[in-house]
């Protein structure tokens, strides 16, 4: 028999289980143009809907006249708020506990806001119809600055002010001004102030983490199809959380959940942009109910950049205190968070500023306090986590800048300052001052490995020489060494403290083993390019001993997949990956009983070995998992039900805490402001590594989006609330040309509470990358007195820094 000549190593290799760089099974279809995205869905009689959008950032709508639009050939209907109001659908709840206009209800609050929905036979007629809708606007004063918003008499949200002028509480407690959304606090205020007041060294710094956008290659969209005969609604869409969307649609439409099927087909990137619920979904559903036909809505690029979920827009002020030797003693952080016209952040309910309270970073800071004020402005709503767990990019940027600023104040090397403040390996599990319990880490080992790998001392010597040469007029280029050490907090999360709209953030996996020894597993998550069909099959292969190539992974169809909260915040591996392992173990437990019966020994006398159960001490006596699967269905075994299936719903006991150490070497042309990335080294510790090739790809992608955000990508507004960066001419999306060669490295510190020790990696490189690129720019000018300058570090802003430092004189 073949099995007898196969070595154990061969059997392990055949499984393509955890730890191997299995090629992505998805890529056969993606590289041949055979993916099936939402815009590929074409149904008989399908109509197309699109929006009339507001050209103004703040205006009253005095009239909407659709008469001419309805004369355009192919235009069937024009929906306005007045049409949705009888259904109670002119407003919808947001994930953040606020509500948002589906279609403008008397006023608009941001440029590009949805005013009317034109339904037509095709997208061309819809576009012509949009042009023909006449809307009368009465312009109102525009507020684009959140600090001004908290002082002005201009009320953006009249719906949130009581008739007597008082300000009712919001979803997250008391509000202090009509344009104020919430104040959220973490940590010890008085204790922190006391530490800061008595500090040997104290630094204060303000920084603005600018507004940007996830900009997935595929924009948002959906197809809604209401079958009036059997009362079933099918909704295909670009949903990062299809099950949550089903529940939300049911709650707001009144259609029973069993009559709603939500399907996420292939998704071309999400990065947080596709977590929320958008007016396009609601209008498509309503239009399908009204017309009895399927209705498609697909954003164009400008719609996507201008209206669906932005990211960041945090004005942060920090105070950090230390001893003269550099031991950090306290941290204070205040954030003014610009949420736009509606609070549509995608955060767990109890965390209106996400996990911003991870802002003590990787450091043992005994005392800290965080306060976040959410504010309405005349900008698009959103505030999603763009390739990061909830607001973790903001938190890590904040602390990694504060540490650099402290190093300047102390006259210390920034690498050494980090080293003496890292949480030590023996301190884990570590309870941080702002509440989180870090599960595991070995920061010193990672840091030393990173610094040695790049010859850190050599880089600093070279940099010092460069400064001398610059001062002597021998060069016009400065050199920056950017450092960052980050701790992510991912895998939301424990149901005891993480829910969205009351939906607990567990996840799930359901496995069916087929009689011939292949399998299908379905999960509550949905890949948007992460390669779940590849990696989850690897987890299962290692757990149940069937080859990954014989396991189909399916996600995204709420009629077939078990309930789960979807894919964002690097939660798929920490939560659904854990569910997969646990379901696999249930399969294995039953297989053990079957194997023991077949081998005629007691259950405890067999043990699992790669792809089989063997009799302990007699490895020549075994049953392969394939044989066991066949027996499970076809042999009557006393006391054991036929079949081999399992389902697991996993509620994680804690978050996972991936970390990493990054170094960027950058040369900056002082005269033109052009930065050139000479080297980028990224060490990631994501715990147990499932597929090293996919990890490397994730790191490359996250770093590239980090480069984008740090060096130029922004959603910028002028004073009138006009979006200045609404196309890819001005919105920076890096190509292969702008991207350096990345060096990747790793250490492995498994999560102690995760079934396979994995922590998640998709977002780490973005979280750690942004401060690393930014710190490199800052570091280049450190010798000339720069302390803080805001991102994005595009050519002119870098030039401006050099200019203000007198380097052009």
């Amino acid at each position, binding site marked *: 028999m073949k099995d007898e000549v196969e070595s154990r190593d061969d059997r392990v290799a055949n499984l393509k289980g955890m730890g191997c760089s299995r090629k992505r099974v998805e890529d056969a279809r993606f590289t041949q143009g055979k993916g099936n995205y939402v815009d590929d869905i074409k149904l008989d009689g399908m109509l197309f809907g699109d929006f009339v959008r507001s050209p103004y950032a703040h205006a009253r709508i005095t009239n909407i006249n659709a008469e001419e639009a309805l004369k355009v050939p192919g235009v069937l209907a024009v929906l306005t708020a007045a049409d949705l109001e009888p259904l109670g659908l002119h407003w919808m709840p947001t994930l953040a506990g606020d509500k948002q206009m589906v279609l403008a209800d008397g006023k608009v609050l941001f440029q590009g806001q949805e005013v009317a929905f034109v339904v037509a036979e095709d997208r061309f007629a819809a576009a012509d119809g949009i042009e023909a809708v006449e809307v009368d606007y009465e312009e109102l004063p525009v507020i684009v600055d959140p600090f001004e918003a908290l002082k002005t008499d201009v009320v953006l949200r009249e719906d949130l002010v009581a008739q007597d002028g008082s300000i009712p509480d919001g979803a997250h407690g008391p509000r202090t001004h009509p344009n104020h959304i919430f104040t959220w606090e973490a940590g010890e205020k008085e204790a922190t102030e006391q530490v800061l007041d008595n500090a040997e060294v104290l630094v204060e710094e303000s920084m603005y983490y600018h507004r940007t956008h996830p900009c997935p290659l595929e924009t948002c969209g959906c197809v809604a199809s209401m079958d009036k005969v059997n009362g079933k609604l099918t909704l295909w869409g670009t949903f990062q959380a299809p099950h949550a969307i089903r529940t939300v649609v049911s709650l707001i439409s009144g259609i029973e959940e069993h009559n709603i099927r939500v399907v996420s087909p292939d998704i071309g990137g999400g990065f947080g942009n596709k977590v929320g619920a958008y007016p396009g979904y609601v209008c498509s559903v309503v239009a399908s109910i009204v017309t009895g036909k399927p209705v498609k809505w697909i954003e164009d690029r400008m719609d996507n950049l201008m209206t669906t979920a932005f990211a960041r827009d945090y004005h942060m002020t920090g105070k950090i205190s230390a001893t003269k030797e550099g031991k950090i003693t306290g941290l204070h952080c205040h954030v003014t968070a610009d949420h736009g016209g509606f609070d549509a952040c995608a955060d767990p309910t109890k965390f209106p500023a996400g996990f911003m309270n991870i802002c003590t970073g990787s450091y043992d800071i005994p005392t800290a306090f965080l306060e976040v004020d959410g504010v309405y402005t005349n900008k698009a709503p959103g505030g999603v986590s763009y390739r990061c767990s909830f607001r973790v990019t903001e938190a890590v940027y904040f602390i990694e800048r504060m540490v650099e600023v402290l190093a300047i104040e102390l006259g210390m090397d920034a690498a050494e300052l980090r080293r003496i403040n890292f949480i030590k390996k023996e301190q884990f599990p570590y309870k941080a001052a702002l509440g989180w319990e870090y599960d595991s880490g070995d920061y010193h080992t990672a840091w030393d490995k990173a610094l040695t790998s790049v010859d850190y001392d050599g880089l600093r010597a070279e940099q010092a020489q460069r400064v001398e040469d610059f001062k002597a007029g021998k060069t016009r280029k400065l050199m920056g060494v950017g450092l960052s050490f980050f701790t992510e907090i991912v895998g939301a999360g424990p149901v005891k403290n993480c829910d969205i709209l009351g939906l607990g953030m567990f996840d799930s996996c359901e496995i069916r083993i087929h009689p011939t020894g292949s399998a299908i597993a379905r999960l509550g998550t949905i890949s948007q390019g992460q390669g779940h069909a590849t990696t989850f099959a690897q987890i299962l292969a290692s757990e149940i001993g069937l080859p990954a190539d014989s396991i189909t992974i399916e996600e995204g169809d709420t009629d077939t997949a078990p309930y789960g909260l979807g894919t964002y915040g690097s939660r798929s591996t920490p939560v659904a990956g854990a569910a997969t392992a646990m379901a696999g173990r249930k399969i294995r437990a039953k297989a053990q009983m079957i194997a023991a019966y077949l081998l005629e020994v007691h259950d405890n006398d067999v043990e699992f070995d790669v792809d089989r159960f063997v009799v302990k001490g007699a490895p020549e006596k075994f049953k392969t998992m394939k044989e066991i699967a066949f027996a499970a269905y076809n042999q009557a075994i006393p006391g054991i039900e036929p079949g081999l299936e399992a389902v697991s719903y996993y509620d994680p006991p804690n978050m996972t805490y991936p970390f990493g150490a990054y170094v960027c070497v950058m040369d900056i042309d002082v*005269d*033109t402001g052009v930065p050139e990335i000479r080297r980028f080294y990224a060490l990631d510790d994501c715990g147990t590594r499932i597929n090293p090739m996919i990890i490397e790809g994730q790191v490359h992608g996250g770093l590239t989006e980090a480069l984008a955000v740090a060096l130029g990508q922004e959603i910028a507004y002028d004073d009138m609330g006009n979006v*200045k960066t609404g196309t890819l001419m001005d919105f920076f999306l890096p190509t292969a040309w702008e991207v350096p060669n990345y060096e990747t490295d790793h250490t492995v510190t498994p999560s102690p509470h995760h079934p396979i020790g994995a922590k998640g990696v998709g977002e780490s490189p973005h979280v750690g990358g942004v401060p690393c690129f930014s710190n490199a720019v800052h570091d280049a000018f450190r010798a000339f007195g720069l302390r803080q300058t805001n991102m994005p570090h595009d*050519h002119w802003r870098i*030039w401006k820094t050099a200019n203000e430092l007198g380097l052009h004189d």
Partner: protein
Amino acid sequence: MIPAAFDYYRPTKMDDVIALLQEHGDDARVMAGGHSLIPMMKLRMAEIPHLIDLQAIDGLNEISIEDGQITIGAMVTQHDLINHAGLEAAAPILREAALQIADPQVRYMGTVGGNVANGDPGNDMPGVMQCLDATFALVGPDGERSVAARDFYEAAYMTAREDEEVLTSVSIPAPQGGYAYEKQKRKIGDYATAAAAVQIVKEDGKCTAASIAMTNLSDTPIYSVDAGAALVGTAVDAAALNAAKAAMLGNIDPTEDNRGPVAFKKHVAGVILARAIERAWSRA
């Protein structure tokens, strides 16, 4: 991002193109590679009820080099320009400039004729053509006429071309001496923050002729006679570079946009020009 409805024509004879232009006047436009016009139509910034595609017209995609004269048909693509061996020897600045236009996919479609005729101040070839003292051939109802590149541009998207004329080819006297096209841009596919085209002739260590044009620093390309003159007779030393920069800065009139404010653009224009001159001089 969907254009208003339009009629599409794909004539095979230039006479038919002219006839369509005469019939529809301002409502008609010819299209070469379409990489400027189609995005404008999709944004509904340009409404073109009658779109005339030039792809089927014979004889517009040839490159000839004879008797010191280079002629480039309007439908020659940037890709063709880059890969034409004779052209690389005769006028290497064209290849250097074309390689800095967008990306390969755009360069497969984008044409020299479209690039120079559209009148977009962000396009690179207008400045290059002014630097090379090119002439544009225009065909209209009254036959053919030619206009110097240096006289062609009036304002953004406004040129000496009449509505009923088609730009059919570009003629360039074979350039002499060293060359450079230096461009600073934020990313691939972007227009220049500042760009400079330089041709320079060196004899016995002195500059005997210099031609300088700047891209995207005014509402037209800027041919700076004064900047060139500042170099002639010098050894292109620091003083001469500064004089050329100062002269050029007197000619440009940049506006603030997302690339940066005016002061930044002027500073960068000076830096880019100096680098272009130095590179051209090193090749002269």
